[in-house]
């Protein structure tokens, strides 16, 4: 099965198409593909508990690895302890490592 790296830089409060990106991640994971969703910039905003975070929790439940950029979290004053279950803070180095691994990468 294929391995994907989806990078989400937008938040669902201002970009309605974020939901479609999340659905893409879910669909790929349910097909048996390996999927990492890396949240960066305002993409980390919904990772806060109770901030439309149920969607991200569902992604994690579907088998998507959901990571939130540590720098973007710090910029926005979001503590790692404030994240919804299933979302882990990660350095941006993860992105270059997954690219080097050959993941099919898509930036939104």
């Amino acid at each position, binding site marked *: 099965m294929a391995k994907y790296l989806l990078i989400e830089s937008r938040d669902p409060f201002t970009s309605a198409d974020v939901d479609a990106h999340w659905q893409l991640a879910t669909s790929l994971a349910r097909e048996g593909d390996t999927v990492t969703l890396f949240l960066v910039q305002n993409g980390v905003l919904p990772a806060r508990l109770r901030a439309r975070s149920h969607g991200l929790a569902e992604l994690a439940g579907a088998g998507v690895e959901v990571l939130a950029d540590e720098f973007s979290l710090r910029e926005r004053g979001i503590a790692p302890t404030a994240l919804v279950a299933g979302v882990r803070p990660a350095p941006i180095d993860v992105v270059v490592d997954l690219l*080097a691994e050959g993941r099919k990468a898509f930036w939104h």
Partner: protein
Amino acid sequence: MADAKTLTFLLMDPPYEDARSTTAFRLLDAAARRGWHVNVFAYEGAVALPFAKQAPHANAVHGRSVEEENHPLPREWVRALMETARAYGGSLDWVNCGLCVDERGAGEAIEGVRRGSPADFWKMVEGADNTLVIPTR
């Protein structure tokens, strides 16, 4: 470095406009610090990132001199990324889209930046382990 990877990035955003440029520079830095070979194809507004005539300025509103303002210049970040890549045993090859440069009058780039065409981007993609396109909105 025997197992050095090669990554290609396509950037499109101009300087001082969007957080995507900051994120892109962070990705380039992370790859450079691994001693990898990094290709950048700057398209559209991104050709202004290494523009040599970017100049720092004072801030009269806040009463700060040029030195106090310490205005960030993307061209210096590009230069620093090239130096970082070399220091770690890798390389950073930056190609500016020539037509995009001409349209914007941004032909004076810092040393190390090449002029090219989308054909160069294709060659970069062909020669890389992977490619990330960071599009404008």
